[in-house]
């Protein structure tokens, strides 16, 4: 990471000085590599839900050292809390306190993952209380983690269990360096759909994926990551961005499609290209987006309309065409933004479009599922890109370091990893998901 500050506070003399002064010291995050282990140490599975033993056996099949009880290990790489059968807040105590005792043993880059059930309006009050309580406890735990370790949760809806493909896919994602910048978040398993990959390092093998806005920044990173994970890529961007787009394509063996996503026939062009040249269309990543920031009082129609047209209207139109074409098993992942969740000054237009993406994804989940497919969104927080590099230094430092639990901005790679996971067959059961990749930031960026 090209961040001088992080370098300074984590190495040599300046590290000591930073400690002495109590300066925030953003940790180095544990990121994915094909040869790095899934977890940086043994994993302790706490709780005795149904199928807990089968889950442990599965984890052992992933080459993990699995402990069902505190075996006196000096160090742990992961902690799984099985909380899905609790019925009253009073039952939280033993498991949470056991987890607390294990926390001190977690090595840098460790992972805590809870597994629980969703709190529903139809639940008995005590049941809903414990389930919602877990949400609060895990988000708080995320804020207590150190050394780049994270705490996230998996929520199992009715009909799904510890061994559902979506559960295992989510668990593996949270364990892996792929989730480096995901903290304090929940993934909800909504169905037993999905399939784990034959090769966990090539989860997208045989898939044809289209990424819009792929010439630079997060889009280019998504394209590279999907290609690394085995997909054949079609990279799309505005004709004017063609030079950078071609460079991305030639790095990853992709084909280019110079296209304005707001064109009426954009979806048709994408389908013609993907199917004509590569035989199918399995994954679409709606990444193309623009910002035209202005306080609403100073907003003009050109700024407002262009942001809506590119960031949400184009996606609605394309999705409609994809659904009409009945592409079997199509997985769509859209770029939302934490601005669309938490709001951001000067971004009413952008937040309307990104909030719109979230609404679209939730509402479209059923439609895509009917054709064996799925749709999801990733909401990035503060990501270090050419775009955010233009934010004044002071504001940037605060945004990237002080507010998120992980005390730093994420990398385009971190967003790309989440998108790759959500576009994989393992994530089919997570249909309709909106996942924040924000280092557990408090605000939108």
């Amino acid at each position, binding site marked *: 990471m090209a961040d001088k500050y992080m370098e300074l506070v984590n190495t040599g003399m300046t590290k000591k000085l930073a400690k002495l002064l109590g300066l925030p010291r953003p940790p180095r995050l544990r990121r994915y590599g094909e040869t790095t282990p899934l977890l940086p140490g043994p994993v302790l599975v706490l709780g005795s839900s149904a199928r807990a033993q089968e889950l442990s056996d599965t984890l052992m099949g992933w080459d993990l050292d699995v402990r069902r009880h505190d075996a006196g290990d000096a160090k742990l790489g992961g902690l799984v809390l099985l909380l899905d059968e609790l019925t009253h807040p009073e039952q939280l105590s033993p498991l949470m306190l056991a987890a607390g005792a294990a926390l001190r043993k977690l090595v840098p880059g460790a992972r805590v993952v809870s597994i629980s059930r969703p709190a529903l309006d139809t639940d008995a009050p005590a049941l809903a209380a414990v389930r919602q309580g877990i949400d609060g406890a895990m988000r708080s735990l995320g804020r207590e983690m150190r050394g780049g370790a994270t705490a996230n949760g998996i929520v199992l809806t009715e009909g799904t269990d510890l061994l559902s493909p979506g559960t295992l896919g989510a668990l593996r994602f949270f364990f892996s360096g792929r989730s480096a910048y995901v903290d304090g978040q929940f993934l909800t398993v909504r169905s037993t759909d999905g399939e784990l990959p034959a090769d966990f390092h090539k989860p997208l093998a045989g898939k044809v994926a289209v990424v819009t806005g792929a010439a630079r920044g997060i889009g280019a990173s998504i394209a590279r990551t999907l290609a690394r994970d085995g997909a054949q890529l079609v990279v799309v961007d505005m*004709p*004017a*961005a*063609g*030079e950078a*787009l*071609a*460079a991305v*394509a*030639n790095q990853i*063996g*992709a*084909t*280019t*499609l*110079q*296209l*304005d996503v707001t*064109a009426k026939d954009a979806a048709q062009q994408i389908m013609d290209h993907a199917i*004509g*040249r*590569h*035989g199918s269309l399995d994954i679409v990543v709606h990444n193309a987006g623009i910002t035209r920031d202005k306080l609403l009082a100073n907003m003009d129609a050109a700024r407002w309309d262009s942001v809506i047209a590119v960031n949400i209207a184009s996606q609605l139109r394309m999705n409609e065409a994809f659904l009409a074409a009945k592409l079997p098993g199509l997985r769509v992942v859209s770029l939302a933004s934490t601005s669309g969740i938490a709001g951001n000054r000067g971004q009413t237009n952008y937040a309307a479009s990104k909030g719109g993406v979230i609404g679209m994804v939730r509402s479209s989940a059923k439609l895509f599922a009917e054709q064996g497919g799925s749709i999801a969104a990733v909401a990035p927080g503060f990501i270090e890109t050419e775009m955010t590099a233009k934010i004044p230094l002071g504001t940037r430092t605060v945004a990237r370091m002080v507010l998120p639990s992980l005390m730093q901005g994420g990398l385009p790679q971190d967003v790309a990893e989440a998108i790759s996971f959500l576009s994989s067959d393992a994530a089919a059961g997570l249909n309709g998901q909106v996942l924040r990749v924000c280092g557990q930031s408090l605000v939108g960026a």
Partner: protein
Amino acid sequence: MSQPSVRNAVIIGGNRIPFARSNTAYVNASNQDMFTAALEGLVARFGLQGQRLGAVAGGAVLKHSKDFNLVRESVLGSSLDPATPAYDVQMACATGMEAIGSLANKIKLGQIESGIGGGVDTTSDAPIAVSESLRGILLELSRARSTKAKLAALAKIRPSHLAPSAPGTGEPRTGLSMGDHQALTTKAWNITREAQDELALASHLNLAAAYDRGFFNDLLTPFKGLSRDNNLRADSTLEKLAKLKPAFGKNLGEAATMTAGNSTPLTDGASTVLLGSEEFAAAHDLPMLANFVDFEAAAVDFVHGAEGLLMAPAYATARLLERNNLALQDFDFYEIHEAFAGTVLATLAAWEDETFCREKLGLDAPLGAIDRGKLNVNGSSLAAGHPFAATGGRIIASTAKMLAEKGSGRALVSVCAAGGQGVVAIVEARK
């Protein structure tokens, strides 16, 4: 359609960089930079990364001797398999046409399965030679063995020798510039200033409209911040064009009609065209836009005044039509390179002229008029500019796409060249 015994050569697609007026956007780009960029865009469009193609052929008109392997060096700098052979071609402004045509022939004969043809030129980064007398002295210096002989050679250098010799478009045998040559032809065929300006205006308007409807989205990859040809004047009018002063044939006085508006400017740019056999295209799931049917070169004696410098395509066309048993009217598109508006109009006039067709082309009847609505419908060199060797690739790729869009028909492509030469070709829609 011409030779049933050989297989089809298919135009799969093309890619060029936007063309830039000399000393503008590409002032720091070399021929190799530009041709590599055009190749890389083509490789990306068609997913050719790491593939070994049959051949890459192309060239530049203004080329330094150090660039003897210009195309091969570009291939080595590209994402193609380095085991792809490449060779340089040079036939003045017909370089691209000759490169593409020769590749098509190899494909038809089954010698290669695929190839990329094209060209590049820069007048911004043009090679500058030392004067002939200085060159002589420097060569003498390099041959000298003794210090005395070396000093003697050096002593011959005079300040006047240091004036560089920049390349021009002058004809070595007549000393006339290409424009001044064309001015003679333009006058001989009584082409009016108004007719030339109208053709120039149509070129700009047609090219601008083609950009606006996204025609070039899959024919062009931006380069150095340019995403359209910067010679294009979408707001040009006949009034503006009429105000320009004559630039060529000034010695003709009142009869001088050729201006900077109805002549192509010096331009930088590069183009490529991907060709293949039907088997190659099918095996790689690549589109088949059109067939490259046949091509023909001609040359005329302009030195002794028997013919205008840029009239060779008129002759080549007659022979090509006869060989393919076609009439001039059997085409849906006519792509006649606009070196000068006068070149296009003189060529059309010659085809309509009974005397010319009888005496010069040896025909019983004139080739006749064409439907002007089918001429350069997406603009041509007057608007796009004319980086000499790159023009053929620009036209062939665009023509193939036009035929693919129409879904039927046939196009005649004509490119004139220095030295009194020209190459014409027939491109046909896939059935």
